[in-house]
């Protein structure tokens, strides 16, 4: 029995945590109790059976599964536990998941690329099957019968043709004396025998989420700990010139101020005092080489890198040559980055929500100048990841502060820090040339990706002739990194929009056009099914539209249809979203549904509103108020169908993102004839304002300046200026009332100045009612 393995992954270097760590059990609601929460620490005597590093059977008859990927909301703790439990024939209610600490023995622990289930599928199944065989062997020896005469079910070994049975825990004493059957000697179940996998299972952590008992990275607490924040240079590429911490240090409870290469850290008795201390710092920055940088400059540079494409083949009868633009995005996780660190005598212990514990361990070791063996990285739940936590910046800062101050510290970014110091999804410009022949078939697809931060091109997932890709990039020092579905985020938006453009150029139905462009049966299948589910081709009310799009990646296939309406005023409403996903084998259909909904809302939110912009060398956004996310009253219902088409699972965390944005934009085109080639959509009025109509006999509208920065003056002339109470209502792109304003009359016209100071940059609609008629005028708040 290898007791050490089990202990070591739960042992604390320094004492015991005060809050509960995320070690939880599967459970059923009973009237008695929520569930038991197992807290394992060095004081607990563990005398279990550990046939491998992946699973332990405890004396209490629990099955403890070690999860070597990070839980960021993608459900991996549940999924991994299910995989082991299935092959082990464990009682699902007795299954517990624990997080592995950073250790090379677990293989690659980076949670990215939707690889977790695919990479661990066979390993974890074998681990379950080996443990099961070991327990059978133990029972067969105890009973003196051949192993073939034993079978397992719900954490018991039974005697076939007999009445004897033993719980797994009762077999431990015998089993620890027997050799673990080698992985290649055990037979894995066939899919048709699965009892847990492929069936919707509830999140193993749900009881603890809903009672506040899960320990996220920012929740870790120990006796005597301190709290720390950092002040970092707001200028991209700038640096610290000088600072004065006299006032900060005067605040009672501020225990230290430390200069790190990343900025100035303030350590205090609690988070609030740390923030107060930081506010009291006086700082001068060197603004650096990019002090005047703006997002417009970046896109101007992109445009200067556009080159002329070669000619399309000479059967081309019609062609499009156009540009798509995609902005920087922040990850904006719900829980800002944070990490707990404790440093003593050359040893460092970390507790953090990280997607990359091994990288955190390496980078902390090198930052502190100690050996990796003296760094322990424990993984806690993350309040969202989306790729952000693959970077270890926040863990390293925590470790440095712990070392500098000598205290155990919880370091955290505020929401504003978190956005401004993100590793953004790169911004890119896509120049495109594509054409069709006399039959409407594509004759070529040329795509040049120009980006700040690496963006690889992606080949279209349809069969197109003469596909040519080019890339170029230019760095302005804006930090970039992976963002849910990475290069697909931009590329699929562009590719699926251009396919739509070609379909319309050819006068073909966009669904049928796609079907004719592929021989891939699985792709055809998801497209056909989503068309069926959405009643593609049936008539919609006036002002409504449908858009279709698909994506192939992470071993899976998916197709989306988005249904929208655009009102007379220009208000966009997302009516419904349909998805058909083919994961091959759906490991946990309930979780797949959650992922497809979550990624779908990511797709809609970012497409509509989200953009990180730069002015004067600084990131402009600072929170959910100016980096918006959809709210519950803005999201449509989802219609999701999950197929089963093979025995092998695929990656489900990212697949739901890429085809949502183009389906939405294609739907807007269907509804309005307006083609969105620049994200976010909120930058484009969905109302074609006709100059003549603007000066209808009733009412003449004028906004100055437009686009505007914060304030805009509205002038309205009517044919009747006697009524003194004309007012306008300002709506956002989704038709939410933002504010109302009364106009004053000077005898010939009405006017007012509107202030958009605290509102995100976007199109807004100024709506006024006059002579029982609604008039709507778009205005644009620019960055």
């Amino acid at each position, binding site marked *: 029995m290898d007791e050490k393995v089990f202990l070591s992954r739960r042992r604390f270097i320094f004492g015991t945590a*005060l*809050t509960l760590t995320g070690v939880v059990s599967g459970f059923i*609601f009973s*009237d*008695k*109790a*929520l569930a038991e929460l197992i807290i394992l620490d060095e004081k607990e005597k563990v005398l279990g059976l550990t046939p491998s590093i992946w699973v332990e059977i405890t004396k209490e008859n629990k099955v403890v599964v070690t999860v070597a990927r990070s*839980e*960021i*909301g*993608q459900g991996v703790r549940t999924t991994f536990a299910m995989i082991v439990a299935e092959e082990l024939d464990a009682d699902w209610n007795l299954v517990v998941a624990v997080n592995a600490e950073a250790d090379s023995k677990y293989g690659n622990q980076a949670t990215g690329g939707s690889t977790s289930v695919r990479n661990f599928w066979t390993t974890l199944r074998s681990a379950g099957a080996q443990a099961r065989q070991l327990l059978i062997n133990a029972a067969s020896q105890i009973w003196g019968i051949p192993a073939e005469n034993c079978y397992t079910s719900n954490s018991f070994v039974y005697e076939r043709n007999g009445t004897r049975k033993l719980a797994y825990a009762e077999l431990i004493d015998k089993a620890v004396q027997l050799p673990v059957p080698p992985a290649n000697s055990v037979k894995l179940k066939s899919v048709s025998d699965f009892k847990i996998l492929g069936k919707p299972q*509830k*999140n193993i*952590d*749900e*009881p603890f*989420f*809903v*009672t*506040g*008992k*899960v*320990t*996220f990275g920012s929740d870790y*607490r120990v006796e005597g700990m301190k*709290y720390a924040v950092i002040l970092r240079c707001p200028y991209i590429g700038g640096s610290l010139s000088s600072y004065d911490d006299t006032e900060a240090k005067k605040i009672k409870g501020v225990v230290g101020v430390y200069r790190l290469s990343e900025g100035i850290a303030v350590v205090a*008795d*609690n*988070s609030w005092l740390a923030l107060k201390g930081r506010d009291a710092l006086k700082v001068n920055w060197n603004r650096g080489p990019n002090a005047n940088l703006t997002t417009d400059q970046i896109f101007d540079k992109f445009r200067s890198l556009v080159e002329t494409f070669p000619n399309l083949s000479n059967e081309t009868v019609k062609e499009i040559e156009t540009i798509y633009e995609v902005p920087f995005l922040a990850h*904006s996780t*719900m*829980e*800002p980055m944070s990490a707990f660190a404790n440093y003593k005598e050359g040893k460092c212990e970390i507790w953090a929500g990280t997607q990359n514990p091994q990288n955190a361990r390496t980078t902390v070791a090198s930052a502190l100048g100690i050996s990796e063996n003296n760094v322990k990285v424990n993984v806690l*739940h*993350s*309040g*969202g*990841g989306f790729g952000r936590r693959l970077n270890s910046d926040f863990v390293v800062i925590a470790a440095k502060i712990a070392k500098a101050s000598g205290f155990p510290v919880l370091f*955290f970014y*505020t*929401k504003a820090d978190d956005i401004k110091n993100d590793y953004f999804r790169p911004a890119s410009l896509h120049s495109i040339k594509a054409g069709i022949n006399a039959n409407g078939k594509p004759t070529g697809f040329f795509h040049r990706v120009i980006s700040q931060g690496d963006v690889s091109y992606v080949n279209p997932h349809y069969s197109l002739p003469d596909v040519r890709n080019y890339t170029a990039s230019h760095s302005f020092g804006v930090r970039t990194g992976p963002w849910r579905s990475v290069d697909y985020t931009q590329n699929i938006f562009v590719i699926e929009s251009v396919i739509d453009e070609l379909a319309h150029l050819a006068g073909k139905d966009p669904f049928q056009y796609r079907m004719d462009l592929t021989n891939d049966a699985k792709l055809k299948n998801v497209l056909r099914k989503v068309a069926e589910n959405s009643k593609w081709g049936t008539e919609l009310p006036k002002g409504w539209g449908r858009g279709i799009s698909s994506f192939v990646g992470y071993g899976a296939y998916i197709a989306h249809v988005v249904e929208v309406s655009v009102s007379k005023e220009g208000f966009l409403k997302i009516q419904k979203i349909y998805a058909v996903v083919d994961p091959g084998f759906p490991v946990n259909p*309930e*979780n797949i549904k*959650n*992922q497809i*909904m*979550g990624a779908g*809302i*990511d797709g809609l939110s970012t497409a509509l509103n989200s953009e990180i912009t730069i002015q004067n060398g600084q990131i402009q956004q600072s*929170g*959910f*108020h100016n980096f918006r*996310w*959809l*709210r*519950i*009253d803005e*999201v449509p*219902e*989802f219609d999701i169908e999950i197929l089963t088409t093979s025995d092998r699972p695929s990656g489900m965390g990212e697949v739901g993102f890429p085809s949502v944005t183009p389906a939405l934009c294609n739907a807007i085109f269907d509804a309005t004839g307006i083609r969105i080639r620049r994200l976010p959509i909120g930058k484009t009025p969905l109302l074609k304002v006709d100059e003549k109509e603007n000066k209808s006999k009733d009412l003449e509208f004028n906004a100055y300046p437009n686009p505007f920065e914060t304030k805009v003056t509205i002038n309205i002339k009517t044919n009747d200026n006697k009524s003194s109470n004309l007012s306008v209502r300002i709506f956002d792109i989704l038709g939410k009332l933002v504010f109302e304003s009364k106009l004053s009359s000077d005898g010939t016209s009405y006017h007012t100045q509107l202030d958009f100071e605290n509102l995100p940059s976007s199109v807004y609609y100024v709506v006024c009612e006059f002579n029982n008629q609604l008039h709507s005028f778009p205005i644009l708040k620019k960055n």
Partner: protein
Amino acid sequence: MKILVNKKEYNLNIDPDMPLLWVLRDILYLTGTKYGCGIGVCKTCTVLIDGVPEQSCVVPVSYVENKEITTIEGLSADGNHPLQKAWFEKSVSQCGYCQPGFILQAAYLISKNPKPSLDDINRALSEHICRCGTYSKIREAILFATKE
């Protein structure tokens, strides 16, 4: 200063201006109440003060003296509040970080309106952000919890 959290009384010697959020998290170690933005925008830090949802990040602790605070840890003795059960039944959470705020807001909603419509739910929760996009499941769970 005395404050009452989840029916337990605490005697604190702290700055009355300190936001309740940090008192809960850093002094009482009640970390179920989450920090999302600190400026009243995301509602993830919502707690009930005398039964009414408020954002603990913008409420100074002096404001809650002699008032009763309920955090997610105190919503029910055993995790058996109908909403907690419904959340489990519908497997709502993804990362789970925003859920305490949603649940407390929803608990207030159903205390005032035991049979909320979809519109009532959307309206009551329209200021809360779930970055993972669990909104549809939240709607389902509240409807599930409040059907006969």
